[in-house]
């Protein structure tokens, strides 16, 4: 993520001489995605703040790390590994949760903000189709945010490994015990896969939020969330069941059992790449039904933007 682009006005001088006919269809999309990142600096600032907190917080826990590591090394290999890996997994999970929240709020504002500040009239005065605009906004939570997450997780974990190493060396221990039990590079592959799987799984959520954002005049968050709560309450009162609630929960968290093979263990850990099951994940009906919904929501959003003006 090139965050420097804000401050370098000449960053696009390469884009200058272009024949009108040569302008490809992807150029407006590319620039529209960049535009979104310019506008929504919270897309990377919030994860960076969380990262700073993680690094600082972990630095504090390194007090007494050497003693804890000695204790951990007395355990059996599987528990050793779990204990050493735990803070790294926690940091990654926190970051994934952070970008999810950032993505939710981004989507809720994406098509509402341009109507609120009337800038939709400016955007519509340029030869950029509603399709391109809505796609560029969907790409943010589906592609850009996962990439931001993985880049920051990698950096945070590297800093954590360094912090640990320094402390261990200072106490006359070998930092290799971390590397031995925490396969960093393999872990990043797992993360990349998990983020891709999660983005696809959450696609209908983002699609729904974009639709609400393009639809309602105010209170986007309430319009997005209240119907879901209302349906749950209605179901509970009328039928005494909570299938819809389970359905929503499944949509939020349910990707993991199909995307990974946890060998039926209670606390889910990934030890080897063999536990990634993309084939099984891609044949999950839930994934495809979700994607169908995502496409339908986005199609509606594109259609809706044609009719939309300032509010």
């Amino acid at each position, binding site marked *: 993520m090139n965050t420097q682009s804000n401050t370098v006005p000449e*960053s696009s001088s390469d884009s200058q001489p272009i024949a009108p006919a040569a302008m490809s269809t992807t150029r407006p999309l590319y620039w529209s995605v*960049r535009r979104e990142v310019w506008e929504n600096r919270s897309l990377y600032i919030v994860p960076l703040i969380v990262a700073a907190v993680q690094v600082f917080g972990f630095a504090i826990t390194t007090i007494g790390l050497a003693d804890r590591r000695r204790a951990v090394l007395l355990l059996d290999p599987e528990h050793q590994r779990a204990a050493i890996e735990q803070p790294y997994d926690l940091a990654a999970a926190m970051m994934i949760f952070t970008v999810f929240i950032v993505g939710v709020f981004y989507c809720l504002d994406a098509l509402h903000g341009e109507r609120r500040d009337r800038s939709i009239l400016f955007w519509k005065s340029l030869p950029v189709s509603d399709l391109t605009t809505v796609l560029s906004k969907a790409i943010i939570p589906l592609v850009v945010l996962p990439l931001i997450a993985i880049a920051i997780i990698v950096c945070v974990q590297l800093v954590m490994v360094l912090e640990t190493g320094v402390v261990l060396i200072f106490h006359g221990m070998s930092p290799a015990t971390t590397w031995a039990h925490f396969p960093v590079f393999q872990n990043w592959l797992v993360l990349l896969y998990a983020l891709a799987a999660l983005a696809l799984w959450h696609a209908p959520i983002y699609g729904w939020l974009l639709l609400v954002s393009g639809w309602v005049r105010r209170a986007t968050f309430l319009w997005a969330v209240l119907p879901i709560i209302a349906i749950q309450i209605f179901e509970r009162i009328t039928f005494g069941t909570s299938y819809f609630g389970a359905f929503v929960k499944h949509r939020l968290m349910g990707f993991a059992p199909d995307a990974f093979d946890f060998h039926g263990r209670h606390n889910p850990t990934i030890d080897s790449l063999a536990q990634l099951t993309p084939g099984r994940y891609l044949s999950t009906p839930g994934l495809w039904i979700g994607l169908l919904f995502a496409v339908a929501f986005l199609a509606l959003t594109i259609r809706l933007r044609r009719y939309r003006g300032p509010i």
Partner: protein
Amino acid sequence: MATIEARGLRKAYGTTIALDGVDLRVEEGRILGLIGPNGAGKTTALNAILGLTSYQGELKVLGLDPWAAREQLMRDVSFIADVAVLPRWIRVSQALDYVAGVHPRFDRAKAEGFLEKTTIKRTSKVRELSKGMVAQLHLALVMAIDAKLLVLDEPTLGLDILFRKQFYDSLLNDYFDRSRTIVVTTHQVEEVQDVLTDLMFIDRGRIALECSMEEFDSRYVEVMVNPEHLAAARALNPIHERPVFGRSVMLFDHVDRQQLATLGEVRRPSIADLFVAVMGNQAGVAQPPSHKATARQGGATT
């Protein structure tokens, strides 16, 4: 092919009829002023032309149906709504980058050239600029686009006199040529009087008057009538009469100039005067004289 061609253009918002069967033809190289009271349907007409709103009836802009082909149309059409549509968060450099990125007909060097003449800094955000500077920035972006049609909806609203003057000056000197067409709506009619080539009054969704400025100059004459010729002047059926400093100023349509010169001082009417005359008459005010205008004038002097 006319730049804009509309037949029976209609648009209703619920029970409110914004456009009520408008026929319109704007040829290449014209500067059309669309003048009307608030809520007359000006902005709706422009929105239809720009593909921002759906409509009934026939409309072709540069040969395209705007509602179906907005994206394609916007390669050849530029548009300034009012001063407040540039996003406030964007930096000047980013605005240049973005328009250069998405617009095949944008000449970045030209836009930079226009900006050189202003005090706008590349690193400024739009929210840090004054209203006048935002208008300058938007104008610089738009004038650097090699468009065939430029649509301006109240482009100088809220600007001070200097910026307003400058706005139309640069538009005429640095942008307009005979191959472009400009459509402008404004309430500040006095400042576009010498800019326009064509004039159109629109009221309650209908075209109330349509003429070229040459026609305007030959058809309409304003006379400050000498008190002794008052009756003779009224006999010639002025379309409007208003008192100014105790004397009557009458507006005539299609009356011989020589004949009018004998009645008093002959002047070129302003668009605003004609607007009041035409709209006043449309509203069913008895003529002559316009009671509405007389009453207002009388109230102001007493």
